[in-house]
């Protein structure tokens, strides 16, 4: 039983990381109907920025965290301006390919600048553990869970309660109509990329104590975040986090109770099952095209 709870908690913590990356997918998808295949790589780059600020320049953890988030938000805007904006309005597949290309580029450039070793960031949560009875919970995992819940709540309120959030949802439905309604669509898209890069950075920094950062971490985790986003229903913010947690728990349970090898494929089997049985996901809305 204790094993089960321990696996559950570590699964939830891992799942929250997937959830945070999936949040990035969902944000970009909600505002532009584009799937950013480079989301995991943005997370990786954010982690490296934080490593540079904290590990190499010796800044305070929180200061370095904030610096990395701001730098990555600007980088997200830049990436949107250079790669995505010229091809908005073309078929989705073009944009998917462009973001795959961006991901290749980021991985390779990061490998050239920082090298291909594993890096670790010293955080205030690195070593401590919380003991409840005989249950041992590491602070770094708890910090991921807490941050995910806070970010998810903030973003949910932002999308559903603020004017800017509504504008984003409108431009996702129909860019031209949104533009006619006076929504500055270009700026909205730019802002949403900044937010999603910032969320990715938060994921990268929180992840750093758990699975060190290296140039391929984004690819590995980014691909695991897809099942999370799909399970939650692409386009739903709470869905992304719930989907992430479910995938994390499934993966960690499969690793513990099933023979070797199931751990890596379990998320994808779940993903295929969801796509076959309920393609709109747990929280998605099913819409049909009218001719």
């Amino acid at each position, binding site marked *: 039983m204790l094993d089960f709870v321990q696996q559950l908690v570590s699964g939830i913590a891992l799942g929250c990381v997937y959830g945070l990356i999936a949040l990035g997918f969902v944000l970009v998808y909600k505002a532009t109907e584009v799937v950013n295949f480079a989301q995991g790589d943005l997370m990786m780059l954010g982690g490296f920025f934080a490593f540079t600020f904290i590990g190499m320049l010796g800044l305070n953890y929180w200061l370095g965290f904030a610096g990395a988030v701001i730098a990555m938000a600007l980088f997200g805007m830049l990436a949107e301006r250079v790669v995505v904006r010229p091809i908005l309005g073309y078929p989705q597949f*073009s944009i998917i390919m462009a973001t795959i*290309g961006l991901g290749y*580029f980021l991985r390779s450039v990061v490998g050239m600048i920082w090298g*291909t070793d594993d890096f670790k960031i010293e955080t205030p949560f690195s070593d401590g553990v919380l003991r409840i009875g005989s249950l041992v919970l590491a602070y770094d995992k708890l910090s991921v869970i807490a941050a995910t819940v806070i970010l998810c709540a903030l973003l949910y309120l932002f999308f559903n309660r603020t004017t800017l959030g509504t504008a984003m949802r409108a431009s996702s439905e129909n860019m031209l109509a949104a533009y006619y309604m006076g929504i500055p669509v270009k700026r909205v898209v730019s802002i949403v990329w900044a937010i999603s890069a910032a969320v990715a950075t938060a994921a990268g920094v929180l992840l750093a104590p758990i699975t060190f950062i290296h140039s391929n971490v984004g690819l590995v985790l980014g691909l695991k975040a897809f099942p999370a986003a799909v399970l939650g229903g692409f386009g739903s913010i709470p869905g992304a986090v719930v989907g992430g947690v479910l995938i994390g728990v499934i993966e960690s349970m499969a690793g513990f109770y099933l023979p070797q090898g199931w751990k890596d494929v379990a998320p994808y089997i779940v*993903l295929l099952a969801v796509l076959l049985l309920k393609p709109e996901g747990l929280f998605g809305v099913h819409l*049909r095209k009218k001719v």
Partner: protein
Amino acid sequence: MRFMFKTDYEDDITLFPHSGYIVTYGVLLAFLLIAPFVLSSYIVSQLVFVFIYATVGVGLMILTGFTGQASLGHAAFLAIGAYSAAYLQQFNVPFPVYFLVGGLLTGVVGAMVGFPALRLQGIYLVIATISFAFIVEEILARWESVTHGNEGMRVKALQLLGTTVSRDSPSFYYLCLAVLFLTIIGTLNLLRSPTGRAFVAIRDSETAARSMGVNVSLYKVKSFAISAAITGFAGVLFAHKLSFISPEMFTLQLSIEFIIVILIGGAFSPHGAVLGAIFIVMIDPFLTYLKDDLPVIIAGIAATFGADSITAGKIHGNVAAIASANGLKGAIYGVIIVLFVLFEPLGLYGRWLKIKLFFQLFPLYKRATFKRQKIYVKSERNR
């Protein structure tokens, strides 16, 4: 300029619209036939890879380019073809038999993937095919009684008509050329048949195709099966060319390379698959060339513009450091993908058509001829 008057439907669907085609493709074919005797063995070996990649490219093009169903899982189909060849070879099954079995088995698997894919669109289909490829990769690594797991499998040289055809021999080159040739001819014929027309109709508008009486589900599954089968045939050749296969060769990276083949070549014509395959196969030798020769050339240029020997030496060192940096290939891939998506979505073949049209219509060429239409109103979510 040439005017082509079409008087009936046969004129419109003919394989060779005018005699110029027969001459140019005849010359190309003749050159490829004598190539093993005039070119160096290294280039011939690279050409074999070009043929295999181009075969996969044509297969992927049927699915992605003509039916409009994106797939990032074609490495898995290639793996199934390659592994079925390696497995059957152990029991002394003759080459023609396991070549056919490899292709047909992959086609059946492709159809099995196609059925669930019927419900999926756009990104969901991309994600589903990625998952399928992951699962296949993991099965290959774990099903040790058949695939030998991560140790990989040796593939013996193939036996054909009682002779051994080694992977570097001209005979193997001709075999790959023949497979590519038949694939391209088959695809061109498919495209002028009702099936091919149905594929293109589905790509352009599923709703319109359905209302014209096209059985969308049937044709999508057919497209998956044909595309997978072609990739499976290529997989058999791939296994023989490499002579050793293991699960980590058939990763997402390879699937992305196949997509790059048709993206860079142009996804609307088999020409594109060949051009894209040449690009993908030649990028490695090109990078080696960059590493060795570029620093010398740039330092030489700097020296001619009056840089003293110390500065020239520094420039030489810096350029050499950049050109030999790890992962340069990834960065170049990334930049090239983005540049093609942004500036030349029709690929190299599209660029060639534009240049040709420019000279044919000179001085009346208009850039707007090939302008893509941007659609800001259609949400792909609602369908």
